[in-house]
């Protein structure tokens, strides 16, 4: 498995997320064909690089996801606030990816997904799930290597997707 640069973290985290949402979207995104909403995302890789988050709360917004880094005792808690559960798998895998990544940096962390609207939280730890993350990364790379984007499949997700017009015009 190849090593990733810190600055790739943001893109890859998003790509992992997209892998579980839509492969067409993942392909376009990975080729730099992004839609307006995506263009203002904060670079999490750069943020982590500054390393200043240790010991205090910091918030990073990545598109629809907002991540809080909280240090509790000796563990970093990555909090992600989510609107709903429709993208649960995608969120979870993205969180796992961050944990996987932080671990490689020697940082022990766990993630808490917060669903304020549902008054629910979900704790995620990497333990025993490394392979899932690695498989996802490989799958992302496989899709990115396609010469043309995977054929779009119309689902409920398309309705609110920023790529709707591109896919269906």
């Amino acid at each position: 498995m190849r090593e990733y640069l810190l600055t790739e973290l943001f893109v890859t985290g998003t790509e992992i997320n997209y892998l579980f949402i839509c492969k067409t979207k993942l392909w376009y995104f990975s080729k730099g064909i992004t839609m307006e909403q995506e263009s203002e995302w904060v670079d999490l890789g750069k943020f982590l690089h500054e390393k200043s988050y240790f010991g205090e709360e910091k918030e990073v917004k990545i598109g629809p996801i907002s991540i809080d880094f909280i240090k509790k005792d000796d563990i970093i808690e990555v909090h992600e606030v989510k609107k709903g559960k429709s993208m649960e798998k995608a969120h979870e895998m993205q969180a796992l990816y961050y944990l996987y990544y932080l671990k490689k940096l020697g940082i022990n962390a766990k993630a808490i997904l917060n669903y304020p609207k549902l008054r629910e939280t979900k704790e995620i730890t990497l333990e025993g799930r490394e392979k899932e993350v690695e498989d996802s990364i490989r799958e992302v790379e496989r899709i990115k290597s396609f010469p043309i984007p995977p054929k779009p499949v119309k689902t409920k997700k398309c309705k609110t997707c920023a790529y709707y017009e591109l896919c269906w015009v």
Partner: protein
Amino acid sequence: MRKKSLTLFSDGTLYRKENTLYFENAQGKKPLAIEGIYDIYIYGKVTITSQALHFLAQKGIAVHFFNHYGYYDGSFYPRESLHSGDLVIKQAEHYLDREKRLRLAKLFVRGASKNMERNLKRFGAEGNFSELLEELEDTRKITDVMNVEARIRQEYYALWDETLPDGFKIVKRTRRPPQNEMNALISFLNSRLYPAIISELYNTQLTPTISYLHEPSERRFSLALDLSEIFKPIIADRIANRLVKQGVIKKEHFREDLNGVLLNDEGKKIVLKAFNEEMRKSVKHPKLKRNVTKQRLIRLEAYKLIKHLVGTQEYEPLVAWF
């Protein structure tokens, strides 16, 4: 909130104070909500401070300038924010590969012709270009494609002319400077349409300098020229036809100048108002099954081009169904 195009017709100053953009003219100063601006069209004598330009660049807002006659001069095109190296390579590949370039060039001409045919029907004239379009298919050189396009256009103007009121005949399509009213009107509208297309391209990853029907050296944003072939008939020509036939634009809205016939200020205002209204009108898109504005149709055309270039779907030029 849907962002809007801003037209500055009067003379004044555009400046930034803290996080607000202001336009100050003889009537006073007016704050402009920057988040609501899509792009800016400047017809008046406007002074822009560098701070205002920095602010606009930061927000990715293009500013288009028009000269004293109302014709497009140039754009302030902020450093591009959307990049895709892969797409640039695909765009170049489709230019360099003769077959691929010809294919696209012919599609632009085909789309333009179909829209002209459609207009003729609307305008109450008869005519179709099927023979010329057959000839188009056999062309092997870009110059020949251009040539067929010119002949189609010539025929189109002649047929359209038969439906136009006296005093507003195109007779011979003349540019730079237009020699009569209808020519002035069409040129003015095309001049407004072209930067609108540039703005749409700015909001995609397409490189506006690589084009297919037109030579990339022809003008800086030559891809906008390619796309304007599709949109000139369905936007500019339709507005011109309507304004003249409904008598909204009259002889009194023009003036003569050393430079030929020109719209006067009142005429320009009427036309710009009609143009802005037209761009905001929506039509139901048969494939998207959604309402889209005429302006958005330009963006969709850019998306179709992206899909053609990456190899997902062959470009099918927009033929007005409305």
